[in-house]
């Protein structure tokens, strides 16, 4: 029979162990709700030339309209027809070019502050670089979780000529593979997150002529507010 003292000692050790383990747990991320009301802003001068007419070609502007995948192994990245479009770019971000450092990294830092993971488990996608005339692998990616077991927000980004093109979507849960749950909610979430971080959001600002599923082809323009 155990003595009362030994029972007490066990209880104290168990309690302390439990508290220690709880303290060692990571903290939940400081996430912005997707339905936050975003205060609309004017489009920045940097994109003024592209707001009047729909953008219909991949070489018209520094921003791209779609992300692509190679049709088959060994596809030549310099050959436009060797790749096929998979998802529409729905957010254009304009980092302040007077701020030192990498604008794309400042975009990603906003997502990291939300607790997003960089380079999660994901497919490899490409975008057309009009200056080099070649397909470029995703330059920066992030998602709310590494696997998206039950769903996640997920973005891929390319930065050409100082303008960041972002493909934002919500993944379905892995059953057992991901599908697209929504492009529009991905877009909305990115607007909310960057608005909360102090960037200026102009909704439906540029017609990229790339409507797909629940996204109407009108990309938002988000500007770094220095």
């Amino acid at each position: 029979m155990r003595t009362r003292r030994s029972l007490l000692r066990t209880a104290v050790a168990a309690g302390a162990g439990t508290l220690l383990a709880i303290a060692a747990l990571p903290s939940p991320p400081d996430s912005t709700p997707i339905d936050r009301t975003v205060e609309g802003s004017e489009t920045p001068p940097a994109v003024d030339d592209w707001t009047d007419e729909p953008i219909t070609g991949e070489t018209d502007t520094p921003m791209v309209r779609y992300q692509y995948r190679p049709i088959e192994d060994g596809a030549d990245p310099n050959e436009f027809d060797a790749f096929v479009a998979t998802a529409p770019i729905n957010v254009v971000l304009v980092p302040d070019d007077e701020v030192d450092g990498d604008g794309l990294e400042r975009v990603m830092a906003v997502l990291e502050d939300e607790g997003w993971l960089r380079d999660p488990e994901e497919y490899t996608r490409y975008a057309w670089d009009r200056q080099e005339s070649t397909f470029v692998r995703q330059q920066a990616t992030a998602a709310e979780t590494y696997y998206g077991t039950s769903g996640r927000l997920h973005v891929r980004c390319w930065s050409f000529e100082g303008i960041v093109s972002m493909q934002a979507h919500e993944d379905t849960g892995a059953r057992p593979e991901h599908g697209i749950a929504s492009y529009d909610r991905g877009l909305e979430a990115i607007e909310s997150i960057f608005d909360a971080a102090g960037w200026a959001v102009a909704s439906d600002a540029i017609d990229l002529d790339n409507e797909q599923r629940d996204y109407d082809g009108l990309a938002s323009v988000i500007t770094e507010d220095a």
Partner: protein
Amino acid sequence: MSTDDRYGFGRRPTVGDVLEHPLLGLERGRTEIAIAGLLGLTALFAVSYAGSTVAVGGAPLETLTTQFDTLTKLLIALATATITILPFVYAVWNGGPLLSFAMPLVPVFLGDVAAGQYVLGVDAVIALTVGAAACALAMFATDVRQVGSLRPWTTVEIDAVSLLVVTMTVLVAAAGVAQFAAVAPPRNLEWYAPFSVLWLVPAGIVGAYWQAAVRTTVATQGDETEIES
């Protein structure tokens, strides 16, 4: 179930002893299969990670072949199964509360390490929830197997160590999930919601065991009082 004989004074536990510990699993062979599976998952993870980080001639490996997309598909499917289903299968098959709890956390931990973010995201709270439920189920399954009854706490002598470990584990997981639920935005709670029903498993099992343990203790004390008077 006692392991005292294996952990005799002055003898260092070997890897074999650890593998045979009932908190990891009942049959060593099955425990080894589970651990080998987790190592296999880790290896696949490493290959996929290398695909995006190891460059050959300036271009990451994954740009050379679309097979890395196939690997991603496979890894997401395996990781999801390890986070949601396999811990229950293992718990029923081989007991082992601690391994059942740790199993879903392994892929989540690998992701955190690769991304360099230690954060309690949706995948992590799902893993904690599944882990807690599988942990309690493992203790229950072990005793059901021993006594052949679905209410083993009424007949089996409750193993204090395993009840204590399971209780602590379930409390830690519950604290993590509570922290998450307190601050997570609606979309994340929505994604977590289907898994919240799993809390019935540890709550029911741990609750029943403690009730039985308290009842036994009270009865024993009652006997003692009678003897003393």
